C-alpha cells in the first residue's frame, strides 16, 4: 500500500485513498503478504525455494480448511469455540482405531473422524438452533465436554508415531506431482466452498440468515435449519482436519490443538469476515490464512526468537482489524457524500 502514489491518484478522481483501498481490500491484504514475503526473502534467501513454499502451504492447509468452516459459522452470526476440542476428539479416535487395526485404509480413518465431527457439530448446532443458547456459550460448554471426552477415550495416553501405520502417516508426507497431498485437499475445499457460497441456494441462504435473521425467516428460509447446518459443516470439517492433524504430527494427545480455535477465528477476521455476521468471502479467508501461514513460516526464517512470534502475530491481527475499520469508515463516508440528495 504505497500511500503517496495512491493519494495523488485519488485526488484526481475525487475519492479518498481509503475509499479506493476499501474497494480492493483483498488487494491490500495481498500486497501486505507479498511485502512480508519479500522482506523475508531479503533477510534469508532460502524463502522462495520450492521446498519452503511447499512447506508453508502444507502447514497452512489445515488452518485454511478450518477457516472455511468457521467463515460459514461467523457469516450465520455464530461462533464456534469447540472446534479445537472436536478436532482433538476425532483425531484421537481415528488414531486409536489405526493403532488397533494397522491394516485399515487411512481413508476409513478419515471417514470415521469426519463422522465423529458431524456428531459433535450436530450437538453444538442443536443447542444453538433449537434451544436458542448463544453460540459462544454453547460452543464453550461443548468444548469442555469434547475435550474431556478426548482425555477419557485415550485414558490420558498418547498415540505416538510407532503405533500408526505407514499408510496413515503417508497421507501427510506423501506427494502428488511433487506437491504435498494437503495442498491439493485444501485447494479442493476452497473450490468447493467458492461454489457453495456463491452459486448454491443453501450457500446464499447462509448469508441471508446472517445479514438479517428476521427477514430471512419472513422470506421463507428455515433459519433454524441453516443455523444447524453451519455447525454441522463446521463439525465435519474439524473432524476431517483432526485426522489430517494427527497424521501430520504423527501423534494424538489429549491437548491436541488446544486453543487453535483462536487462530482459526483470527484467520477469518484477517480475511475480512464480519464478526457480526452477513459478510465474508472465500478469497478473503484464503488471504487471511496465507498471511498467518506466511508469518508462521517467515518469523523463524529471519531468526526471530520463537518467543516473539505470539506478540507479533497478535499485533498484526490488531493492526489489520483497526486498518479495516478505518477503511470501512471512509468508504461509508464517501458513499454518503456521493449519494445525490
Amino acid at each position, binding site marked *: 500500500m504505497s500511500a503517496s502514489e495512491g493519494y495523488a491518484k485519488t485526488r484526481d478522481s475525487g475519492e479518498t485513498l481509503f475509499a479506493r483501498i476499501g474497494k480492493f481490500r483483498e488487494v491490500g491484504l495481498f500486497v501486505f503478504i507479498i511485502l512480508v514475503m519479500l522482506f523475508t526473502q531479503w533477510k534469508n534467501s532460502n524463502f522462495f525455494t520450492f521446498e519452503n513454499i511447499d512447506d508453508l502451504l502444507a502447514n497452512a492447509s489445515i488452518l485454511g480448511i478450518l477457516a472455511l468452516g468457521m467463515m460459514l459459522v461467523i457469516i450465520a452470526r455464530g*461462533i464456534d469455540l469447540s472446534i479445537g476440542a472436536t478436532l482433538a476428539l476425532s483425531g484421537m479416535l481415528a488414531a486409536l482405531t489405526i493403532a488397533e487395526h494397522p491394516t485399515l485404509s487411512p481413508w476409513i480413518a478419515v471417514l470415521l473422524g469426519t463422522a465423529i465431527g458431524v456428531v459433535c457439530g450436530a450437538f453444538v448446532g442443536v443447542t444453538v438452533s433449537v434451544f436458542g443458547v448463544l453460540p459462544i*456459550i454453547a460452543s464453550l460448554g461443548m468444548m469442555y465436554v469434547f475435550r474431556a471426552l478426548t*482425555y477419557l477415550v485415550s485414558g490420558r495416553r498418547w498415540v505416538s508415531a510407532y503405533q500408526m501405520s505407514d499408510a496413515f502417516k503417508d497421507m501427510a508426507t506423501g506427494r502428488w506431482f511433487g506437491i504435498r497431498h494437503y495442498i491439493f485437499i485444501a485447494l479442493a475445499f476452497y473450490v468447493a466452498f467458492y461454489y457453495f457460497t456463491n452459486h448454491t441456494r443453501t450457500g446464499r441462504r447462509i448469508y441471508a440468515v446472517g445479514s438479517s435473521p428476521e427477514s430471512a425467516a419472513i422470506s421463507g428460509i428455515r433459519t433454524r435449519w441453516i443455523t444447524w447446518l453451519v455447525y454441522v459443516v463446521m463439525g465435519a470439517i474439524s473432524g476431517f482436519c483432526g485426522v489430517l492433524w494427527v497424521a501430520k504430527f504423527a501423534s494424538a494427545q489429549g491437548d491436541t490443538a488446544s486453543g487453535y480455535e483462536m487462530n482459526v477465528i483470527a484467520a477469518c477476521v484477517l480475511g475480512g469476515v464480519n464478526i457480526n455476521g452477513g459478510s465474508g468471502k472465500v478469497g478473503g479467508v484464503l488471504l487471511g490464512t496465507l498471511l498467518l501461514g506466511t508469518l508462521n513460516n517467515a518469523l523463524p526464517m529471519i531468526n526471530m526468537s520463537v518467543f516473539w512470534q505470539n506478540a507479533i502475530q*497478535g499485533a498484526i491481527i490488531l493492526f489489520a482489524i483497526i486498518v479495516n475499520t478505518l477503511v470501512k469508515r471512509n468508504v461509508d463516508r464517501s458513499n454518503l457524500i456521493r449519494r445525490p440528495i
Partner: protein
Amino acid sequence: MPEARTISADKPFSWKAFFLQWEWMLLVLFILVQVANSQLSSYYFNFDKPGDSAMKLIDATMTFLDKAFIALPMAFVIIMGEIDISVGSTVALSAVLMGVSNKAGLPMPAAMCLCLAVGTGCGLLNGVILTRFKELAPMIVTLSTMIIYRGIALIILEDQSVGKFPLWFEFLGWEYVGPSPFMLLAFLVCALIYGVVLHKTTFGRQLYAIGSNRTASYFSGVPVDRIRIAVYTLIGLMSGVTALFLTSRMGSTRPNVAQGYELDVIAMVVLGGVSTSGGKGRMIGVAISVFTVGYLRYGLGLRNVSAQVLMIIVGLLLIFAVMVPNLRQMAAEWMANRKRAV
C-alpha cells in the same frame, strides 16, 4: 425471558415468581453439591467433628477463589452485553512483570503496585481501543490483545520462571484473618462492593441500560464511552489482583500461568444467571455460582473423580444454565399454540 427477571417497580409481588428466580435454583444446586460431596467422600464433611469439617470447607475456598476476583467485573462486562477474553493473558503479563521487577531489585510492595498497574493498563488499552473503534466487536479486540499480552509475557521471560518472593508475600494466599482465610475475606468484601455498585448506584443502573440498548442509552445521556472504559479498566485491575493471589499461592510465576482462565470465569458468570445478551443478571448469582463450581471441583477432586469428568459436568451445567429460561419460554409458547388450536 422469564417473568421473574423483569425489573419493574409496579409489578405485584408473587411468591411463585420470587422462588422461580435463577438465584434460588443456584442455591438449590449449591446445596445439592454439598450433599452429594459429603455423601461421596467421608473426607469432605465428617459429621463426628462438624467444627473441624466446617473449617476445612472454609479452607477449601482458597483452592478456587483466585480467579473468582475476575468474575465480579466480568459480570459487569457481560451485563453490558460485551465480553473480555484477554483476562487470562493479563494475569500472566502482570504476574510476570511483578516477578521480573522484584528479581531486578524492586522492593516487593512496589512490585505489587506494578502488578496492579500493569493489569489496569492492559484493561485500559482494551477499553480505549473499543471506544475509539466502536464498530469492532469486543470478542475480536480482546482476542488479539489476549495473544499480544501473553506474547509480551513470553518475550520477557521466555520459558523461564521467576520466584523467590519474600515470605510475607505468601500472607496473601495462605494466611488467615481470624478464622477466615485472607483470600475469602478479600473476595467477600470485593463481592459486596461490586454488588452495591451494581445494584445501588447510578453507574450500576447505567450498565444495565447499556446492556439493554446501547444506542438508546447513548441518546438518553448515559456516558457510554466513559463507562465502557471504566469497566474494562476495572476488569484489568481485578486481573492484577488475581495475579497477586495466584503468584502468592504458587510461589513463582511463568508466562503460561492462568491459561484458560477467561473461559472458566465466563462460565462462572453465565452460570450465575448473567445473560450473555446483556442487561440481565445479579451479583448474588455470580457469587453463589463461584462457590458452587468451586466446591463441585473440590469435592469431586477429593473423590478422585478425574478432572475430565469434572469438565464434562461444568460444560453441561453451563449450557443447561442458559437453556433453562429458553426452555421455559418454549414450553409457554407450545402451550399457547395448543390452546389456540383447541
